[in-house]
């Protein structure tokens, strides 16, 4: 297991769990949860600096971008122009080329607008970005994203923040079978077992935010997700037994008294 690393854009990571940094009660809580989760990649948002209150704590003061990989995300963007503008600004902050693209299409279910997402992936890739793409669990669109240069496919498990867990395991399996790109389940997980299921399906990693940040005990859930991802990955690598509708006794039939 020592050499079993998550590889994204030729960079190696020990942890297969990526965590979001939103929705925590404080920066201190966020930083501690990240530490407990073992995550080495965190998603971050790009927003206006608060000019009137500069005493507000800065994310970079709590989570060191030299130690943890910041993955700028376009959360909250509803069209290609907004997403491109956001990521170009993100690159300007610190030279980040590895980014997460998320172009939403509906304010209620937060499903991705795949037409805008595809368009943005193509433009960003041509501009030299390495784009990890939040997408629907649609194998055809996943293939198209790959064809225009996505560096990781990130299908949703369920609507963002819903906590429903993976709704369409069949599609995830199909996407897994057709791509060698990192496949990372993004959005909709609710508990550690959801992460384990994603890993057992052969995904390369999972991304969780709300499930940890909004758990009754975020630190404990961060740890649970860490273990869930490891358990699921080991289970996948170990290779499960065949399913059968009949029983198969665990004890020998010989020597019965």
């Amino acid at each position: 297991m020592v050499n079993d690393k998550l590889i994204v854009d030729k960079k190696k990571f020990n942890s297969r769990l990526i965590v979001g940094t939103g929705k925590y009660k404080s920066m201190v809580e966020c930083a501690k949860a990240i530490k407990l989760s073992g995550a080495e990649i965190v998603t971050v948002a790009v927003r206006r600096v608060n000019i009137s209150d500069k005493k507000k704590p800065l994310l970079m003061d709590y989570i060191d971008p030299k130690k943890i990989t910041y993955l700028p995300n376009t959360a909250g963007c509803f069209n290609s122009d907004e997403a491109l503008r956001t990521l170009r600004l993100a690159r300007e902050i610190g030279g980040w080329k590895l980014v997460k693209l998320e172009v939403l299409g509906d304010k209620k279910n937060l499903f991705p607008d795949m037409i805008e997402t595809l368009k943005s992936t193509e433009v960003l890739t041509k501009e030299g970005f390495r784009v990890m793409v939040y997408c629907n669990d649609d194998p055809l669109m996943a293939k198209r994203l790959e064809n225009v240069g996505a560096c990781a496919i990130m299908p949703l498990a369920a609507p963002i923040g819903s906590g429903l867990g993976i709704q369409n395991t069949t599609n995830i399996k199909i996407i897994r079978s057709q791509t060698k790109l990192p496949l990372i389940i993004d959005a909709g997980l609710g508990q550690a077992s959801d992460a384990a299921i994603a890993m057992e399906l052969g995904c390369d990693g999972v991304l969780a935010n709300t499930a940890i940040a909004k758990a009754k005990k975020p630190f404990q859930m961060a740890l649970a997700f860490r273990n869930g991802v490891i358990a699921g990955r080991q289970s996948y690598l170990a290779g499960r037994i065949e399913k059968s509708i009949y029983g198969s006794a665990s004890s020998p039939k010989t020597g019965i008294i």
Partner: protein
Amino acid sequence: MKKIKKIKIKLNGKFSTINENLSFSIFLKELKIPLKKVAIELNQEIIDKNNLKTIKLKNNDKIEIVHFIGGG
């Protein structure tokens, strides 16, 4: 004494009045913006932070200063 002319700019969505001919770098210094942790747009164009000294702010300029915050 020559009276300094004032100009109106929009900073992160809010109008503000500043002195005319103020350089962008002095303007940001006065705001105590940590330049290494932000990105800056002037009229929807990203500004190379090395060039701030050469830019003079003009009337109706729209400035956006962004940074990273917690997000999913």
